[in-house]
């Protein structure tokens, strides 16, 4: 097993077609795959980065944005250290859906999770959402804000490195949500299932 100091789980969410997979591929492989099909289910990969001479592993979960493939449930959010909520700056509908995504995040994710709002596709000339509108939305919801272009590789590295640095800081101050997926024991609990009226009749 290789040697690393921290391991963080980063989950990307947002509408279909906003460029989540492209952001991940750009960051992990340095590629911009054009004409990518929709993600179905969840893709996951590991990327090791260095922050201040220390190795940090990012476990990146790239989810499907399409309603009918939205297989991502509770379990994916619950153990996330950072959530990247992505919209497309040239598509108003993807911005309008942000409150829906936030509701889901509120419901499932830890309240200590690091939340980043990303306006992607700044290489496009048909912008519909001005940067200050995005920033204002992020501020109101207590999120970091960043605009990126997976295509031109703008701010992509910065996005993930910023997350790694921030999470490291949090971890050092022990402010990180802790969980351990392997920590299951057989000390179960027993609940009695009965219909009380029926029981009282028997007594």
């Amino acid at each position, binding site marked *: *097993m*290789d040697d690393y100091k921290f*391991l963080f*789980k980063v989950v990307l969410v947002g509408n279909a077609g906003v460029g989540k997979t492209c952001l991940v591929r750009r960051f992990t*492989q340095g590629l911009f795959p054009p004409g990518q099909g929709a993600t*179905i*289910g*969840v*893709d*996951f*990969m*590991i990327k090791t980065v260095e922050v201040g001479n220390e190795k940090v*592993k990012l*476990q990146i979960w790239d989810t499907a944005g399409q309603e009918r*493939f939205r*297989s991502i*449930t*509770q*379990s*994916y959010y619950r*153990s996330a250290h950072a959530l990247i909520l992505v919209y497309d700056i040239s598509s108003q509908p993807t911005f309008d859906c942000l409150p829906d995504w936030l509701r889901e995040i509120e419901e499932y994710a830890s309240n200590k999770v690091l939340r980043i709002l990303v306006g992607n596709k700044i290489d496009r000339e048909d912008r519909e959402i001005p940067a200050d509108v995005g920033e204002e939305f992020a501020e109101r919801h207590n999120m970091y804000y960043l605009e990126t272009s997976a295509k031109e590789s703008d701010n992509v590295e910065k996005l993930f490195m910023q997350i790694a640095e921030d999470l490291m800081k949090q971890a050092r101050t022990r402010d990180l949500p802790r969980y351990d*997926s*392997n920590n299951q024991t057989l000390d179960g609990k027993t609940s009695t299932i009965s219909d009380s009226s029926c029981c009282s009749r028997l007594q």
Partner: protein
Amino acid sequence: MRRHMLVGGAARRLIGPFLGSPEGRPFPPNNNNNPFERSLRQLSGAGALPQLTKDRYPQVKRRDFAELNEKHLGYFKNLLGENRVITDKDECQGFNIDWLKSVRGYSQCILKPKTTQEVSEILKFCNDNRIAVCPQGGNTGLVGGSVPVFDEVVLWTGLMNDIISLDENSGVLVCQSGCILENLENFADERDLMIPLDLGAKGSCHIGGNISTNAGGLRLLRYGNLHGSVLGVEAVKADGEVIDCTSALKKDNTGYHLKHLFIGSEGTLGVVTKVAIQCPPKPRALNVAFLGLESFDDVLACLRQAKRQLGEILSSCELIDNPSLDAVTSHLNLKSPISVYPFYMLIETHGSSCDHDEEKMHGFLESCMSDGLVRDGTTTNEIGKMKAIWELRESITEGLLHDGYVFKYDISLPTREFYSLVPVMRERVKDAVRVCGYGHLGDGNIHLQVTLKEFNEEVLRIIEPFIYEYTAKLRGSVSAEHGVGFRKPKYIHYSKSPGAINLMKQLKVMMDPKGILNPYKVIP
């Protein structure tokens, strides 16, 4: 209701249809349940027939069986009617050649019984007259076990295709042995059950053949092998006596468990005519993950995690090495969902609750990534993508054929050694186009393949018997799920002790003293 169907057995059907041979080469569509039309078409299209077995293997001598005469044919025609006794040379052809086109007999008589009683009368007559018989089902075997070596009469089970009963409480299905596996699957599916056996050849293979060869398949890991799920068998001995072991009971310890003699004995001890098989409920939740790994040690660690964390829902755990996947992506134009790694694992779960299974799958993936075992992967429960992922695994056999000639080996090894044979073989066969391994990691069963531009006798001698000696040294099996058939009796000693082989011979003599049932097969 429709949605529910899609998540259950229909998904299995959707995932399966492109499967072909037990390893996955697709068969042409076979809608009329008559494999011989298909065979004839293939033969006429393909031109060259395989060499007659008697010429290719001159050391195998025809035993002292009767030559078929008019009197014999008269008896059969009287018993079955003209239409169910095939003597036309062209019509016989498809029954004489195996699926791999590696062997060819010259039987001039195909019998098509419909009932156990007819099978019994055929065998009694053949035994009395010393006529050799080759039982045949869907003819999808890979070791030449289902076609005649010389002129044995072929007893084809295809008309014995009645489904007799299905008890929806116990899940026990009773049917005749000539039912096509896929038809049984569809029948069970409509009743929210499944057949505990799934293999590529399901569109053609008969359940009787599956049982006679103890077929394995893709989900043996979860549903066990046929010695467990087949509750009862009715078989006819060489002398025509019907042995009824069709108990439909899960527990029945009265005397010797004779049904096991007919499971995997490849038609040499009796002809299976009826089957009772236990069908589990069909899963309501399916999940598939496709993972990229750096080393075989990581693969082993991942397998242990999968068993521990996915536990009872784990239904398949397959390994694919990079050269195997490359055969599919470069020759068949299929796309891998993840980047290139030395090893890939395909993991599938069958369960009864989507949320529960997904949570487990997620927990498993997360710990694999945290431990650094899995570098890249994808998971889904969407039917189209699950199908696309399975297709990568199922198309390997077909992809390899594009390399040229393929030497195929089906070997069981201790899990620790599962992959060890591949690098060793790669070192030995330097001229190979490709040496690759893939298969049922969860069951310790690897399909090792060596491909060449064309067949080469010298290379064969480099591979064999070395591969069998190597397997024997590690206490593996030289035939994991394909059986012995005609092509492997001389290698059986690598996996079975002299005492065991001797007892097999004694059993054969006792149950078939004249040796008329599927001669020249299995027993060395």
